[in-house]
């Protein structure tokens, strides 16, 4: 299937490894990426909170450029982009007056108007079921040798379920299904659906670290070799700010954190240059060694 691909800010900046692994993996999974160029940040929830009308217009503009490609689906690789775009899309699709006003505004700045025909879907949803899942099982030929992988969903791919709605937000299954299809063993732990703390990690670091420690600690205690997440913001929090837990807890967890596309990429035999593990703060070497043993 051909999709409009919106990679968002982080995959262009500090999480480039998410983009390179996604670009390398997608064709193998039968997903043809039509990368959007004339698009901006979705606002990450921050523009929604500071200038909500501007947030709506920025996201409508992204949706309009996606529509212009002729694809039905706008594919995201970030939880926060997914919620922001789906929330705007929901409002615009269900409120003709709002859609008309926003489209008029888009046209008057030279952007295409939005007709309301696009669905926003995260990569996770495209490969957790249906054709994508069948392709995944074939693509993951190298397997994961029973690697113990703790799924970490993060918040904004599950809640609010009215807007996201792919799976039961209290008992999600998609990451587990993918881990199993790749030959890994999913680890269960309560914090897998909780917050990583990232949205407030700059403004309230202590509060955020109090949230971040839950998945790291619980996944460690459950014997996980790595955590996998579908969100680059969760990734940055779990990977980079994990360093700071050393100072607050005295514990050095060294828990490797993988992007979803990297976990599948390992099982699919992607090149090191595509996976780019060297860009992680916490070393992924123990995972690689375990798989090569």
């Amino acid at each position: 299937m051909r999709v409009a691909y919106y990679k968002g800010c982080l995959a262009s900046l500090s999480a480039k490894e998410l983009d390179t692994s996604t670009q390398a993996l997608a064709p193998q999974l039968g997903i043809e990426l039509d990368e959007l160029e004339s698009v901006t940040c979705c606002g990450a929830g921050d523009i929604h909170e500071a200038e909500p009308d501007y947030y709506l217009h920025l996201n409508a503009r992204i949706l309009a450029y996606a529509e212009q490609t002729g694809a039905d689906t706008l594919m995201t690789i970030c939880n926060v982009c997914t919620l922001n775009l789906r929330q705007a899309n929901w409002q615009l699709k269900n409120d003709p007056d709002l859609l008309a006003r926003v489209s008029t505004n888009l046209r008057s700045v030279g952007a295409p108007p939005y007709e309301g025909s696009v669905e926003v879907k995260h990569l996770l949803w495209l490969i957790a079921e249906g054709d994508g899942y069948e392709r995944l099982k074939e693509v993951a030929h190298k397997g994961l040798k029973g690697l113990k992988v703790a799924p970490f969903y993060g918040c904004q791919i599950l809640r609010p379920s009215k807007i996201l709605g792919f799976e039961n937000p209290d008992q999600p299954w998609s990451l587990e299904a993918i881990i199993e299809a790749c030959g890994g063993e999913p680890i269960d732990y309560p914090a897998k659906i909780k917050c990583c703390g990232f949205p407030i990690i700059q403004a309230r670091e202590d509060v955020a670290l109090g949230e971040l420690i839950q998945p790291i600690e619980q996944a460690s205690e459950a014997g996980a070799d790595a955590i996998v997440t579908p969100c680059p913001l969760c990734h940055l929090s779990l990977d980079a700010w994990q360093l700071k837990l050393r100072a607050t807890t005295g514990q050095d967890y060294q828990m490797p954190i993988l992007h979803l596309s990297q976990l599948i990429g390992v099982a699919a035999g992607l090149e090191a240059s595509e996976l780019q593990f060297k860009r992680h703060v916490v070393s992924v070497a123990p995972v690689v060694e375990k798989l090569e043993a």
Partner: protein
Amino acid sequence: MNVALKIWRYDPVTDERVLREYEVDAPEWACLLDVLDLIKDKHDGTLAYRKSCRMMICGSCGMRMDGRAVLACKERMKPIVDAGHVPVIAPMGNMPVRKDLVVDMVPFWNKIRAVKPWLDPGYDEADEKERIISQQKMNAIHKEALCIMCGCCVSECNSMESDPEFLGPAALAKGFRFVGDPRDQADIERLNTLNGEHGVWDCTRCYFCNERCPKGVDPRDAIAKLGAESVKQDVGHDMGAKHAEWFVKSARTTGWLRETELVPKTQGIAAAIKQTGFALKLAKHGKVPPPFPPHVAKDVNEARDLYDLVKQQGRDGAAGIVQGEHALGQIEFIEEAGEREHAQEGQPGAETPPADA
């Protein structure tokens, strides 16, 4: 039908906490609260829980079922029994347990009190003339006004788990209920209070509150409205507000987030310098992208022009979020000004009562 439940019992005298299983025969229409009543009547009179109205109005019977905060009077048991599931009932989270399913709500009420949950119209004596506010204007706080203060949102608040002093979703939604009230005249004072250390910008946007609220209040959206209103009224000088404003600035200049500048723009230069050691460790792995040359989006002039255009249209502040609520909300809004009929709320049971009932 035969209903099986497991209940976390807590005895404050012995400090003993045990999971007990119960089975009762209950009518098919029974909700969780009915089943608890049957257990208390027929099996164990010592079971403690709060209840009053039994119709989703009083907000007394908040508790957890299988880890989710729910109103016991709203949860029908038949689908659970049909699925052969034995749910685990526990007290709400983020509040100390007094006995069994009863939590200490004193901290909760203290936070509600802290937001001054009463109208301040800016005068003591009302004029003789009645002031009519249009339904459309009152719809700005329709969702927040539905709060029954049950505590289900607070129970699962991720920020409050980490910072127990966080005002939390219920108190902040109550705060917006008055900030957004067209009759209230104390907005700036209220916003200043709500922008405190444990206020608006403590919210981590986990959206558990929206997911759990049994009345469709959507407390997270109320918090975002407070943020937007704080920025509009220039009250938001918190680091959280600066963080949010930097995203706006980024979109208006390069289109994409200017990621590396986010730290000094949020925390200030001095605090950012203290982070140098951490930043260097991150930089080693490419996690601190250089700000130059800037990562500029194609056709970014459109995003810049859009900003100027929407600012002229005057839907900034909370109004920018309220405008989308008719489509987003879990409740219906009354459209016509002055219309007396109440909007239909989401019904607790699956069955619709017959028209002649």
